[in-house]
């Protein structure tokens, strides 16, 4: 039979009392993001052909690509609804021209629903 004691965690408790807390103060410190974290999308319209693969594969119907120019002189615009986007980056994988990529910007919360629709 193993010997049992009351309050075995006390050593660890006292040790932790003098340790630096594992949490940070949200009011003072900043959260560190690892470098591969998937955040808000970045769009580079230079090569975009408007093929629509990203739109077709998006599971959340968050991204739309429109051509505001003419067929010859393309002026591609991408709109992302960050309220819908689930940051899966399937669009990044799907794009044949590598126009889309992701950043580490994840501070996208807003008090207003309209602000969630962003022009990329």
């Amino acid at each position: 039979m193993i010997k049992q004691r009351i309050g075995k965690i006390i050593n660890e408790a006292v040790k932790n009392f003098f340790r630096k807390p594992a949490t940070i103060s949200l009011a003072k410190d900043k959260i560190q993001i690892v470098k591969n974290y998937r955040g808000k999308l970045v769009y580079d319209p230079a090569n975009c052909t408007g093929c629509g693969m990203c739109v077709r594969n998006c599971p959340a119907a968050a991204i739309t690509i429109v051509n505001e120019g003419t067929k010859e002189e393309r002026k591609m615009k991408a709109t992302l609804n960050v309220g819908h986007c689930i940051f899966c980056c399937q669009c990044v994988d799907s794009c044949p021209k590598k126009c889309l990529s992701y950043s580490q910007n994840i501070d996208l919360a807003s008090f207003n629903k309209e602000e969630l629709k962003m022009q990329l």
Partner: protein
Amino acid sequence: MEKVDENKERAENKENEENKESKQNRETSERNRIVIPIGPQHPSLKEPSSFIITLEGEKVVDAVIGVGYVHRGIEKACESRTYIQNLYLIERVCGICSHTHSTAFCQGIEELAGITIPRRAAYIRVIVAELERLHSHLLWLGVAAHEIGFDTLFMYSWRDREKVLDVLAEICGNRVNYGINTIGGVRRDIDSEMMQDTLKMADYLEGQLKYYLDLVMTDKVLSARLVGIGKLSREDALKFGVVGPVARAAGIMDDIRIIEPYAAYDEIPVNPVTDTHADVFGRTVVRIKEMLESLEIIRYSVKNIPDGDIAVKAPRRIPAGEVISRTEAPRGENIHYIRSNGTDMPDRVRIRAPSQANWQGMRHMLQGQYLADIPITIAAIDPCYSCTDRAIVVNSESGTEIMDWQGLRQYSIEWYKKRGIDVSLVKMPERKFYA
């Protein structure tokens, strides 16, 4: 003759008396019964589900279990989305064991399409699956400790879980809903820096897990709250068909990783973990030992991961057919059934998550328990949870609407104005939380 009659009469009388007495007993005990609802909203439940508990004093006589409050129609939604889109939908069946669901789904489709994934991809799937098991079990340990009012252990185990989540974020790009699986392999490769970080985390965690195991084994208060609670014997476990750690704590080895190896588990040695306590204590021990086993698996896979591609190209349209695919989720056996009709959308998807199997034995486990032990008994099967952060106003003048933050704020300002306080002068802070 007369004597016999007399005897009979006497016996009958006695029986009547006994009946009366027991009836009286029953009546008084029935009068003493109270029915309390635990859930759908209750601090001890991390998901909405309802337990109507009949109590006699502090003892549970009966429990009626109602689940299904978070039915989101995922299976139906799958039928109107392409396989690629479904990957991310399936991943959101559960926030904690998302990888195991997407693995089961991908595996099934790969089988239908006749694709074999590269070995490196299989190894990466195993590494992520074991990391997921680690974080899920650590989460469970914390929740279980919180249910019995041991918040210090709760905080410690969640602190250690953060380390696992950091590694997961580094490998997959997100803390939960990793999005690492794709049909035909995985989406991201693992580089040597990630491997170093994983091994470093494993070394740290091993010390912590050994400490927790020692703590659970030797702390008197913990064992007073865990031993003998939520008993489900081997026979009952087989009868109710429970899976995962609940079954393994009753001595039933049902680990899919061993019985029917998938991904790279056929090459990686997995030791079965079982226990004979058949109660909450046993489930705790099984989970902690499983985590130690997971660390070994991670170490082995990181060391022996083969070089090569991480994905093969998969067709958009999947050939017609049906398939059943099984994986070992942190909570037990997870089954996916997929039927394809040759288009780019599945015809039918059916998911049997492990918690669904484990609910069956719940009523049996609850009966005869103290009220105080209900939360830990429920938590011991580790049910999944989901949550949302918008408020839906029902029956307001304008009908149902979803309020965003500004709407809620406006509502509260008006609410206070009616009572003579004007809080609209208080400015909302404009700040950015993330570096």
